[in-house]
């Protein structure tokens, strides 16, 4: 740490803010119009001013380290599907609770209004009949889902969890930029931003009166559980899967709230009831928090191209056996042109004006509006009327009218030709907030995402949220399309706040939550992850043995090396040039399987697997055959056994772990059968037996047990029949027998399941066999029997 004396007092603040210059004509969150620090920021800014610059940067790197360790990332479509580091701007946005109260009051009014509008559009359609909304606008929206017209949601309400994007204009007034009701993301990221930011400023966060977020999530979780009614059923989060840009958040929030993370293929519908396929059969689901767009929820009645949805889901909703949050069809509320009608609808439905105005909007489907937009094009953004994207979405095609107005003719042509498809919106400017840029606080434009959840006592706002920070000084809303960073939002109280957490308090009587069966798809992924990791380990050991002997012999055509090269486990791949590719493929298949079960897989395990993948790429990249390769493979072996150890030592023995473990045992047994069949064959050359003992990691054991050179029967005895050698086939069969006995249905009414019987039989056969009886043919039969056991497992649990 720095030896510089901590500086405090007004001088330090002055120094800290010496270079901070708000933009002319733009509000700033930190400084008021006179250039004084706003009251809500004073405590925080004094705290930061008292820190030496090195300390600040050290703290910031601690926050980033937390995010890396927690595995927070985001994914961009069309970006090579790469995971990107989370772009946290470490300086929070601070809002005083009195101002926050005004904001949430306005947003709650808006939430009620949105609920009334959507209930009307799917119900009596008074808004259209009385002329408050044009029928043609509703009819042409792809988000107005005709199969849902006339269907009342099971809970009686369409909206349960929504978000608003808001910003502050130059006059200091807050504006609503857009409504998010389809599948609002960001609440989980808001949590992670909070944890990371609290790590950057831990002492200040602990004593400043900043509202905590957990109470909000508890209320939301309770509401979701209540939506089940008195049924014995589950709550699930329906995700489009791991390729979605916010999949991390889906997995995170599923873990945080204790809901099942489900994909369409996990679900089926029987007699109007949605069921999840688990390893113990079908189980009812009555509440789904969907993170997919409604049109994709049911290929039968909605978008027929969808591969993400569940056929029959709409029927389940229609029968009142499924509550969807938010209801299917609510996406129409995000239609940009709807903003043009909100002030009038507020008057019609609530008989009061909007407490928080939304961004002024004109729909060009109407004559006078069209003329207005044309006449004021230089102060407008021109965009798609039916778009449900936010303005700053990089894929949005909104343009500043000013740029189009230069080509006056083209704008009026465009509006004439496509009027009903276009809106004009006032080109708003955002306020700025401090961000740390190259070690100095600098004003950057920002907008806030605020979340609301419905509770039995009405809407409740998350006291905090998710701020987007622009990447340049350009404060026009549309500039946010160019991306930037995100920041935590602190709502400051004058009084001490309750320190809440979602973890049960130690004083409360401990209650184990009800057992929830593992979805079959998750079990399948864990099983295959176990297999792939073991396959990788087997390949590493075999390749290392190859390179060690290559180095010893100095040539690759000795009888032993020729024999190794044609080992069936290489599938005709050349051990030097091609087999490393197969190894990388096994590792990346393991990572792919793991990435589909991130909600069930520890962060340490995930990181260890990613380290393994990264070091495999690096180690195998450009290494010469022989000694160097053998050493590189040795290092890789450490990584892989490190990962296996982590899984074996630290993972709770849930059903998921059992599938992983069975996959590993099965693969290891199959590989050992294959290796023994080849290297302990009668015709195998000199040195083959030693090689297979080495690949089986049993050199020392062999020496200790037999005190003689390797012979066929000692090798078979040790690697196939020895119940105490963790590398032997018999040991793996015992492991599988044990794990399978814990699976649902292992004991059926009429005795054992087919899978249990099959494994028990194999185990008994090998247990009583003499090494001499186990020849190559018998080993190949055993391998085929193991594959059959794998098929039985798949049939019973994984589909």
């Amino acid at each position: 740490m720095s030896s510089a004396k901590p500086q405090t007092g007004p001088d330090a603040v002055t120094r800290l803010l010496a270079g901070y210059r708000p933009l002319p004509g733009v509000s700033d969150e930190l400084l008021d119009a006179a250039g004084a620090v706003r009251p809500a920021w004073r405590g925080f800014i004094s705290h930061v001013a008292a820190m030496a610059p090195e300390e600040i940067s050290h703290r910031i790197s601690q926050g980033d380290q937390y995010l890396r360790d927690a595995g927070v990332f985001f994914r961009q479509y069309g970006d090579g599907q790469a995971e990107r580091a989370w772009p946290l701007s470490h300086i929070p946005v601070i809002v005083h609770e009195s101002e926050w109260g005004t904001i949430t009051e306005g947003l709650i009014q808006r939430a009620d209004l949105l609920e009334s509008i959507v209930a009307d559009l799917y119900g009596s359609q008074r808004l259209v009949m009385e002329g408050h909304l044009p029928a043609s606008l509703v009819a042409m929206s792809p988000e107005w889902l005709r199969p849902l017209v006339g269907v009342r949601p099971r809970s009686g309400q369409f909206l349960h969890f929504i978000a608003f994007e808001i910003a502050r204009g130059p006059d200091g007034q807050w504006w609503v930029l857009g409504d998010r009701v389809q599948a609002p993301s960001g609440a989980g990221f808001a949590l992670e931003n909070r944890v990371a930011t609290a790590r950057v400023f831990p002492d200040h966060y602990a004593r400043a009166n900043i509202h905590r977020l957990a109470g909000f999530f508890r209320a939301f979780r309770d509401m979701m559980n209540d939506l089940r009614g008195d049924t014995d059923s589950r709550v699930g989060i329906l995700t489009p899967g791991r390729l979605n840009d916010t999949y991390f958040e889906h997995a995170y929030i599923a873990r945080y709230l204790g809901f099942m993370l489900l994909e369409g293929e996990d679900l089926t519908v029987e007699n109007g009831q949605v069921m999840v396929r688990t390893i113990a059969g079908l189980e009812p689901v009555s509440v789904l928090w969907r993170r997919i767009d409604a049109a994709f929820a049911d290929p039968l009645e909605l978008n027929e191209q969808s591969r993400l949805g569940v056929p029959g889901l709409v029927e389940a909703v229609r029968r009142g056996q499924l509550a969807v949050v938010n209801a299917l069809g609510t996406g129409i509320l995000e239609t940009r042109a709807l903003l043009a009608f909100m002030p009038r609808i507020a008057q019609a439905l609530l008989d009061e004006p909007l407490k928080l105005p939304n961004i002024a909007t004109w729909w060009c489907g109407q004559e006078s509006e069209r003329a207005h937009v044309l006449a004021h094009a230089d102060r407008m953004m021109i965009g798609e009327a039916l778009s449900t994207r936010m303005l700053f979405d990089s894929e949005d095609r909104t343009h500043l009218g000013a740029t189009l107005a230069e080509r006056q003719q083209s704008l009026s042509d465009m509006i004439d030709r496509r009027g009903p498809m276009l809106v004009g919106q006032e080109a708003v400017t955002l306020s700025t907030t401090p961000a740390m840029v190259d070690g100095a606080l600098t004003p950057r434009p920002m907008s806030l995402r605020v979340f609301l959840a419905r509770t039995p006592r009405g809407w409740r706002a998350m006291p905090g949220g998710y701020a987007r920070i622009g990447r340049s000084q350009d404060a026009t809303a549309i500039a946010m399309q160019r991306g930037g960073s995100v920041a935590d939002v602190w709502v400051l109280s004058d009084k001490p706040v309750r320190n809440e957490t979602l973890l049960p308090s130690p004083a409360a009587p401990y209650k184990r939550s009800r057992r929830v069966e593992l979805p079959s798809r998750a079990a399948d992924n864990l099983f295959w992850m176990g297999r792939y990791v073991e396959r990788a380990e087997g390949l590493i050991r075999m390749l290392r043995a190859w390179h060690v002997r290559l180095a010893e012999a100095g040539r690759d055509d000795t009888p032993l090396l020729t024999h190794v090269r044609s080992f069936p486990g290489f599938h005709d791949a050349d051990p030097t040039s091609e087999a490393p590719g197969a190894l990388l493929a096994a590792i990346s298949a393991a990572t792919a399987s793991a990435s589909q079960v991130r909600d069930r897989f520890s962060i340490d395990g995930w990181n260890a697997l990613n380290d393994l993948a990264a070091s495999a790429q690096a180690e195998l990249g450009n290494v010469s055959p022989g000694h160097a390769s053998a050493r590189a493979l040795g290092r890789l072996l450490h990584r892989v056994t490190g990962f296996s150890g982590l899984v074996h030592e630290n993972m709770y023995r849930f059903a998921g772990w059992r599938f992983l473990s069975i996959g590993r045992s099965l693969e290891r047994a199959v590989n050992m059968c294959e290796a023994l069949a080849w290297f302990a064959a009668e015709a195998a050359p000199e040195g083959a037996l030693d090689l297979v003992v080495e690949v089986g990691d049993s050199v020392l054991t062999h020496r200790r047990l037999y005190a003689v050179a390797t012979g066929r029967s000692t090798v078979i005895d040790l690697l196939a029949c020895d119940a105490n050698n963790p590398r032997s086939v018999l040991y793996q069969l015992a492991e599988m027998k044990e794990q399978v006995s814990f699976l649902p249905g292992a004991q059926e009414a009429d005795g054992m399941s087919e899978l249990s019987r099959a494994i028990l039989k194999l185990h008994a056969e090998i247990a009583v066999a003499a090494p001499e009886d186990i020849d190559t043919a018998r080993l190949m039969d055993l391998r085929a029997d193991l594959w059959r056991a794998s098929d039985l497992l798949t049939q019973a649990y994984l589909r």
Partner: protein
Amino acid sequence: MIYDIRLTIEYVYRAPVAGGRHVLYMTPSQASSQRVITSLLDITPAPDERIAMTDFFGNTAVEVAFRAPHAEIAFRLRARVERIAPEDKPDISPALPALASELAGLRSLAADSPHHFLADSPRVRAQPEFEAYARAQVADDKQTVCAIVASIGQALDRDLTFDPGSTNVDTPPEEAFAARHGVCQDFTHIMIACLRSIGIPAGYVSGFLRTRPPPGEERLEGADAMHAWVRAWCGGATGWVEYDPTNGIWVKDQHIAVAHGRDYGDVAPVRGVVRTSGGQTSKQAVDVMPLGET
């Protein structure tokens, strides 16, 4: 005219599929222009669930679910329907500008509202070539909407070649129009696109066509499978009219309607077809005979 209708649709999967859920639009609809006397839909294997439903547009459909693996499904319809030819009425429909203002004043999202049939739908999207073609068929801005419908329908009948095998159920109308080839589904989608492009609300009707013509008349195209034609809105006073562009005729008493929607996707006879890696074949057979000729 009373017809006996037989329709069989069969699917054979090369590898059995695990189960499936379908929505069927196969049974004739009850309407002022037709009276359903009997209608029986037989399904093998027997589905585990069978639910009768009415969709947004008022069509009747059947939802079925199979839980057991199956390699074949057969849907067989037997129906007797009386079809009533609409009366010939004088053309009182407005010209295009008047149609537009009538639409603008129409505050309704009811099932029959023309607003549902003006914008893009999943399988029919606005394209400049449709608008150019449609405008070329309009005589002047005094021509009535009904006359324009007939004029566009006749033009398509003249310019497009009926050609089974040139397209499939998923061929986009743009593609069929560029090739000037297609079957009734393509003719219908193209005509819908043309009408919508100049502001005439238009939708898709699926149904049956009399198999053999009355004595002395020409056989109509599209009688070997389920047929499709267009319905267009010609203003409040006239309402919806139906035109068959594949044959270049107004729909009278040789067409029997099953369902209508915005395009084929809304009324496909069998929705939710399982696509298997092994592939599949399907067969369709239709027989529509006036009572007494069977």
